């Protein structure tokens, strides 16, 4: 009598654990944005220093001139072109397979000069950028396959650098002109 029995701690009911977990789960599903941001990665040229000498004139044969006007029309080396043709033109320009006199002596000297109007639509601009990038990617892929047997994105770091050195991306963007049209 009077002797206490050892009391066991009553077990915590875990039945509602699932409910709580579900609640949290649903919160995270709703708050989630799965899409990772993606896009065309580029590097802007640094601001010219004030006492910098003006860049040397580039031989005309080494420059591919791409102009886009406020009506989203494309002028490549003085001729009307469609955006879809730009990739082929750029590839031919950079690689210069026929060794033509009016195309660059070597891919390292090739410069694409891009100029757009302030009224050009962003969509067109991105398409042009995309085609230029596609051209360079295609060339680099071909070169990587020729040299190492795999595409550019699967190369090791120093192999990649080698290909990059051979085919550097040189896209110079001039300050946009304000020739009007709309806006």
């Amino acid at each position, binding site marked *: 009598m009077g002797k206490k029995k050892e009391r066991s701690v009553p077990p915590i009911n*875990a039945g509602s*654990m*699932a409910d709580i*977990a*579900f609640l*949290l*789960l649903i919160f*995270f*599903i709703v*708050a*989630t*944005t*799965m899409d*990772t*941001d*993606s*896009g*065309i*990665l*580029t*590097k*802007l*040229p*640094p*601001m010219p220093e004030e006492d910098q000498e003006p860049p040397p004139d580039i031989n005309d044969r080494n420059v591919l001139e791409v102009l886009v006007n406020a009506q989203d029309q494309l002028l490549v080396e003085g001729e009307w072109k469609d*955006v*879809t043709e730009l990739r082929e033109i750029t590839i031919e320009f950079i690689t210069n397979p026929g060794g033509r006199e009016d195309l660059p002596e070597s891919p390292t000297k090739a410069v694409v000069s891009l100029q*757009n*109007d*302030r*009224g*050009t*639509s*962003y*969509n067109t*601009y*991105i*398409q042009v*950028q*995309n085609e230029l*990038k*596609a051209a360079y*990617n295609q060339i680099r892929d071909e070169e990587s396959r020729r040299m190492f047997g795999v595409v550019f994105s699967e190369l090791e770091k120093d192999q990649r650098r080698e290909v990059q050195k051979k085919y550097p991306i040189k896209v110079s963007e001039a*300050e*946009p002109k*304000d020739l009007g049209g709309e*806006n």
Partner: protein
Amino acid sequence: MSKFKQKKGGKTPGINTASLPDIVFMLLFFFMVTTTIRDASLKVKVVTPNATEIQKLEKKSLVSYIYVGPPSTPALKEVFGTEPRIQLNDTYANVNEIPEFIEKERQARDEAEVPFLTTSLKIDKDTKMGIVSDIKQELRKMNALKINYSSKKGGLKK
């Protein structure tokens, strides 16, 4: 007395739900890890253009966003018009506020990470290049040269 005598009146046994919390927790952790909670509510309507040569941005913590597009809701349109606007963080901004924004983004990060900071430009495809060029010019001045033209995977569309 065979050992394998069937029990009479065998009901289908209830499914044991003891492991249900474990399964749910597993899902929960998956979502917690992959989640990036929407941080800024968009006040501009941004439909990014399509492109084929896109790359994924790897380190999300090293990306700062600049949004450009027309005001998204009718109420905002009434006040701010339909011309494309720049949005930094949660508010509309002018081009000349970009340096301050970049500076703040830099201060929020480790000094060693600053050179790897990427600015992702989320720009509506109907925007004119004028405003985009202004932004790019500001970024150049701030020496924030790594940029990303945010775009969706897809073919060219007219």
